């Protein structure tokens, strides 16, 4: 069975490749904004990423969905241009702007050609400084959001996500659903949108990265022009979320052949000294790689699912160790029992030296593969800034992974893995789960 092992072991002794040539320049613009830039003049375009910390969690409880709707309206008319004129202008420039609302941030992703950089950025600026929120646009986009919310009501994944958030986060903004509800969205006024707009976009919470065909001087000028007219201070951040996680299974009855399952226990903060050990542990348990224990036990060995994964969810105001899986209604009880067993087994017995070595080789070897395009790199750079990591983090990250010892991982398994706090939310018609337990 393992005749090939020697060859592979020999290949593994080769050192892993050097990191991609990511040379970050840190600039402070004359206007006072901190910018990370990677110059690359090989393709005549630029990727720009902006993040505004806060996001959906800034909105008041009775205005749930206001941020999502507001963000959806930024490209629906700004400055002198109504929605249709704005869209036409954007197409003429062949630029693309993406606006997204997340729990902890609003992200703006722009891509534009060198040849019309100034015009493209002027248009982007208008959408961030002077969006119109015209009445007809508000109604049109509101209709789209409501249509999506209506579809979500009968979508097992959406039902699971909502039930899970509500159970875990309760009254905290994270518990409300990023898009609000049909009732709250229907009731939003133009003034509500303007209010969340003013709270969301401010210079005290912005992070910027640029990658591509642009010089430091141009980048500084560009960013200042983009942000000069933005207010200094925005709305106060939401406080920490209290987690409601106890052992048990919550069943949401829904007529569908396959049960959708979300599960979680408390997680770990990114700045915790044990974070990297937990990260390695998660990879071995169920994170991303197809070599995880859960993928082997639930899919490869037993054929109970198409896929299962776990992840460390480190939000600004809450940390979870979470996962998801889908299994036929008749098999989901077995799936949950295997997950619980693996959770317990990992805590009791830890991982082996070989598992740790393989996990580290995968994590360190795959890291350079991420830096593979202007847009992707810009995204990574702005994410690093939001985590508070230094620009040289890229060069040291693999050392941090390699510094994790077997003792660290097994100590952290006992510290963090908590089968008594592992909650499952199941949407479907599961067989053999005794109704709503706890």
């Amino acid at each position, binding site marked *: *069975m*393992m005749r*090939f092992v020697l060859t*592979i072991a020999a*290949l593994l002794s*080769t050192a*892993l*490749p*050097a990191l*991609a*040539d990511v040379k970050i320049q840190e600039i402070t613009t004359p206007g006072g904004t901190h910018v990370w830039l990677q110059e690359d003049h090989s*393709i005549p*375009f630029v990727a720009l990423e902006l993040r505004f910390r806060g996001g959906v969690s800034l909105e008041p409880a009775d205005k749930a969905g206001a941020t999502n709707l507001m963000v959806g309206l930024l490209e629906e008319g700004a400055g002198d241009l109504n*929605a*249709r004129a704005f*869209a*036409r202008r*954007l*197409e*003429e420039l*062949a630029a693309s702007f993406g606006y997204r609302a997340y729990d902890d941030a609003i992200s703006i992703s722009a*891509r534009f*050609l060198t040849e019309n950089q100034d015009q493209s950025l002027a248009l982007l600026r208008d959408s961030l400084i002077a969006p119109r929120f015209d009445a007809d646009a508000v109604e049109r986009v509101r*209709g789209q959001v*409501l*249509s999506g919310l209506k579809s*979500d*009501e*009968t*979508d*097992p994944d959406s039902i699971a996500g909502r039930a899970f958030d509500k159970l875990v986060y309760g009254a905290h903004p994270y518990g409300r659903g990023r898009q609000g509800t049909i009732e709250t969205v229907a009731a939003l006024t133009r003034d509500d949108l303007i209010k969340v707009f003013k709270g969301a976009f401010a210079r005290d919470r912005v992070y910027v990265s640029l990658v591509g065909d642009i010089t430091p001087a141009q980048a500084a000028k560009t960013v200042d022009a983009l942000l000069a007219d933005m207010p200094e201070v925005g709305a106060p951040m939401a406080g920490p979320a209290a987690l409601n996680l106890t052992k048990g299974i919550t069943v949401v009855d829904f*007529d*569908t*052949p*396959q049960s959708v399952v979300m599960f979680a226990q408390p997680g770990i903060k990114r700045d915790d000294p044990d974070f990297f050990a937990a990260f390695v542990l998660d990879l071995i348990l169920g994170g991303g790689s197809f*070599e995880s224990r859960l*993928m*082997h036990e639930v*899919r*490869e060995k*037993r*054929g*109970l*699912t*198409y*896929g299962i*994964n776990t992840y460390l969810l480190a939000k600004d105001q809450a940390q979870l160790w979470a996962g998801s899986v*889908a*299994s036929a209604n008749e098999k989901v009880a077995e799936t949950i029992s295997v997950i619980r067993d693996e959770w317990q087994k990992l805590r009791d017995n830890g991982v082996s030296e070989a598992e740790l070595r*393989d996990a580290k*080789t*995968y994590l360190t*070897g*795959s*890291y*350079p*593969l991420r830096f*593979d*395009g202007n*847009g992707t790199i810009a995204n990574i750079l702005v994410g690093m800034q939001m985590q508070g990591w230094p620009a040289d983090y890229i060069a040291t990250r693999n050392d941090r992974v390699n510094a994790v010892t077997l003792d660290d991982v097994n100590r952290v398994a006992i510290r963090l893995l908590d089968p008594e706090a592992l909650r499952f939310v199941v949407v479907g018609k599961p067989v053999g789960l005794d109704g709503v337990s706890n």
Partner: protein
Amino acid sequence: MLRRFALSVALTVPAVSAAADDQVTTFRLHNGMDVVVAEDHRAPVVTHMVWYRSGSADEPVGQSGVAHFLEHLLFKGTDTLAPGEFSATVAKNGGTDNAFTSYDYTAYYQRVAADRLDLMMQMESDRMVNLRLDEKDIKTERDVILEERSMRTDSNPSSLFNEQMNAAQYLNHRYGVPVIGWRHEMEELDLSDALGFYRTHYAPNNAILVVAGDVNPDEVRALAEKHYGAIPLNPDLPPRLRPSEPRQTAERRLTFKDARVSQPYISRSYLVPERDSGTQKKAAALELLAEILGGGQTSVLTEKLQFESQSAVYAAAYYNGMSLDSATFNLVMVPAEGVSLQQAEDALDQTLADFMKTGVDAEQLARIKKQLRADEIFARDDVSEIASRYGRALTQGLTIKDVQDWPDILQAVTADDIMAAARDAFDKRQSVTGWLMSDEVTQ
């Protein structure tokens, strides 16, 4: 269909116009295996892919899903690799791997540090001919694909609806059968079905090697000769004989009801030509027609139905000409609150009729062409996607030259070409119209 569980499907983005020919080198091994190399030296990374000119539309009757099933089974063992060892080895080398199946192709890929290309080729060439399967592999992996079908299709009324739309559109051709397979046939797939498909289709003269990233063509050629060149061609490789669609002479309609539908909508498809080697002009006109009608915020359907009459919350048009056999031109309309499906369909048809009278707006066409040119520049940021275009094209009856000619063919399309394509396409007798609705709604 991806073998693997993935949160985002990165490698199945719709084809954008090709570009960056200067990055691409192509050649053919003596055993008939085509090789495409796309260079990008910005990062020390390589994507290594093997594409087979066989997909679900090449399956034997009664074995729907076997192409995709086999794709899963290729991650089991060979003479020299234990089951699961392929992916484990990729992971141990810091790489990721996956595979996907469509109507016309099955493809396998790894993304890994550029200096691991030799090992990837060694393993990928090994499983091209040395696969070893047993009954236990079959049983658990069949459960996995049935769960995959449950997740992708049976849990999602829109997917079930699309499956019925395709089945109604193709009377005779296998594009009417879902790639993942019909459940009752998937349940019966066995070892001999999987091995039968494998032995018939997996051979170097039915495959395309695509390597993209920090490599040079000479180095790729040497490695390809060493690993793939050593495999003899299969002299019995069958020709790709596919039943062709009869001329459609009657409009087809269907209504799909499901209690899980909360947002009803309309879908329409027309049978139209695909991109054919040397004659891509019609397909180019259809591609631009889709852009003009429903490609974005300033498109005709969006302007008329979302902005003006406000009868739709969403309306769009799609055409993907990358297909070995006849393609479809698709329209979709999600009615606004208070608008019935009948009213929505009437509004959609009226908009099409008006468009046939007013024709193409010259400024809009110019904007679209400008965007297509810009897409060529943006596309250079993703060399794996450039390389994948060649894999898709070569498995779907096109040549390297066809791929490289395509951007200029698109630019040369005139308003008259587009209206002629629209006149040919929009014949109700060659259409399927479907309504997706909830059980409870009465229209």
